[in-house]
């Protein structure tokens, strides 16, 4: 522990010395009396001060939490010798805040005493946090000496984005061969009625539609749509972000990507993630709870990495983008590389949806006329970009703080219904 003297030490010593010198100069014993308490407190305080031997441990009640969750934290402190005042502080990273209890807090420890300081942290922002930077400062009874220590009790806490409520998802154009919850366009064994046709050898008796057979005087069987799963790729653009204060387009993008991935996985679809930016990261499509944790864990590591290198979809491993997969791009449409990569994906026949994380609220127009004109031009350019995607049959929906993801996906579904009708 590092020992430091309080400002009292120098002050009391100086006062005592000056009082004694004054007493000598003026030949007045009253000034000795004035300086006596300071000298006595100093002597006794320094004589009685003992370095405390402290033990400390940190306990966090869980390793994973959702945004807005509360996590209980306990600091167990023990001491062999009495400590008059022990100041404890757990350094709380940005994104977490103390919601209940006190941090920092001062406690008193007796001989062979063991105390637990408990408080609750609220998870304000998703992220991968490291807790454990603890600051201890013990003071003696007279407040003359302090011992400081920074024990490291590293504990990790993963805070996942809070999933938005989504009742309906975007239906992919094509399904995969495995059983799932999506009604396929193809005909086969399933629940949803598709069509009627004449009986053929090999058809099961239970599929005969007896009413239709009676009307037509021949055996008619029902055809049905099978329920299949789909492949969904969440394409996260991490080339650039717009930031204002504590919020950024990347925060919104990660939240939206996490919600979309979780909801598709709940339907037993295969979901993969491509984080396309200065650093390319991917997760091959998979299904189940383990995949959900893998995806969210990988999203927590997402960051904008500045990079000048030109990148296109050819650098993405082929198995990451299975054929006929629905690609949901979550992007602020700020970087030309991601814009062209998405156009390239569409040209390669992928079923593409663009969820645009609008950077407009993060970029206020300037004060000068020139700045305002530039801002208007930028908005027009973005509008033109959206039109380009839409002309290729790609739905573009804008997501932001003031728009629910449910409404955004409804816009996408509406566009895709309209687009299909137009093609027919």
């Amino acid at each position, binding site marked *: 522990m590092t020992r430091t003297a*309080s*400002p009292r030490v120098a002050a009391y*010593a100086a*006062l005592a010395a000056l009082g004694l010198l004054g007493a000598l100069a003026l030949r007045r*014993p009253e*000034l000795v*009396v*004035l300086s006596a308490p300071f000298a006595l407190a100093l002597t006794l305080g320094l004589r009685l001060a003992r370095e405390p031997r402290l033990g400390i441990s940190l306990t966090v009640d869980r390793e994973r939490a959702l945004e807005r969750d509360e996590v209980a934290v306990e600091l167990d402190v023990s001491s062999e010798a009495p400590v008059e005042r022990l100041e404890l502080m757990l350094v709380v990273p940005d994104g977490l805040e103390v919601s209940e209890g006190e941090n*920092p807090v001062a406690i008193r420890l007796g001989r062979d005493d063991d105390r637990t300081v408990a408080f609750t942290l609220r998870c304000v922002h998703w992220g991968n946090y490291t807790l454990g930077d603890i600051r201890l400062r013990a003071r003696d*009874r007279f407040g003359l000496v302090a011992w400081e220590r920074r024990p490291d009790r590293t504990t990790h806490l993963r805070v996942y984005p809070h999933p938005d409520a989504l009742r309906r998802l975007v239906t992919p154009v094509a399904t995969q061969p495995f059983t799932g919850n999506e009604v396929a366009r193809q005909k086969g064994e399933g629940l949803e009625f598709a069509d009627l046709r004449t009986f053929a050898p090999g058809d099961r008796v239970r599929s005969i539609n007896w009413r239709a057979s009676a009307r037509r005087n021949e055996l008619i069987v029902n055809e049905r749509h099978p329920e299949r799963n789909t492949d969904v790729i969440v394409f996260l653009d991490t080339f650039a972000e717009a930031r204002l204060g504590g919020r950024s387009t990347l925060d919104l993008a990660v939240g939206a990507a996490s919600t979309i991935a979780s909801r598709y996985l709940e339907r037993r679809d295969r979901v993969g993630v491509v984080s396309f930016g200065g650093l390319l990261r991917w997760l091959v499509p998979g299904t189940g709870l383990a995949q959900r944790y893998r995806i969210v864990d990988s999203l927590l590591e997402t960051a904008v990495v500045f990079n000048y290198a030109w990148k296109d979809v050819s650098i993405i491993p082929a198995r990451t983008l299975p054929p006929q997969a629905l690609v949901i791009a979550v992007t602020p449409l700020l970087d030309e590389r991601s814009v062209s990569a998405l156009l390239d994906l569409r040209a390669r026949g992928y079923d593409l949806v663009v969820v645009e994380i609008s950077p407009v609220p993060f970029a206020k127009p300037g004060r000068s006329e020139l700045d305002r004109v530039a801002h208007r031009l930028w908005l027009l350019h973005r509008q033109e970009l959206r039109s380009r995607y839409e002309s290729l049959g790609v739905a573009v929906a804008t997501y932001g703080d003031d728009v629910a993801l449910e409404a955004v996906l409804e816009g996408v579904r509406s566009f895709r219904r309209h687009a299909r009708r137009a093609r027919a």
Partner: protein
Amino acid sequence: MLAGAIAGWLALAADDELVRWANAVAGVLACVLLAAGLTLRRPVAVPLAVLALGAGYGVSLGVEGGAIDTRAPALAAALFLLAELAYWSLELREAVADEPGAYLRRVGLLSALALGALAVGAGLLAVVDAGERGGVALEALGAFAAVAALAIVALATRRQPR
């Protein structure tokens, strides 16, 4: 408030006009220093304020002279209490929450220290009064105490990283 009360007490009890003014000025200076120190979180203001009040008392001793002043132990206890309370105020400005009962313990400790200061001062005055003629012995004691105080400062401010 305590600084003002001490200065007011010394000023009102003085017979000489100069002493009255000196204590009034010392009181105002001490109050200003303490207010500034507490506002700006400068602990150095505390000993300066105590020094100002002590200097005012020294002026009254030097000008008025006379027999041993029996107010000295009470004044010593008050000045010590003033310094402790000022440092406590500075500590309270730190964002560290105290557990319940800490204030009561602190008040108890400060009361005990003030009473102890009063008792020590009274004891010292009694010794001086009994001996009356300190002479060279008193000077030697004072010089030794001053050197010892400086030695304590040097020892206490030395950091001991471990």
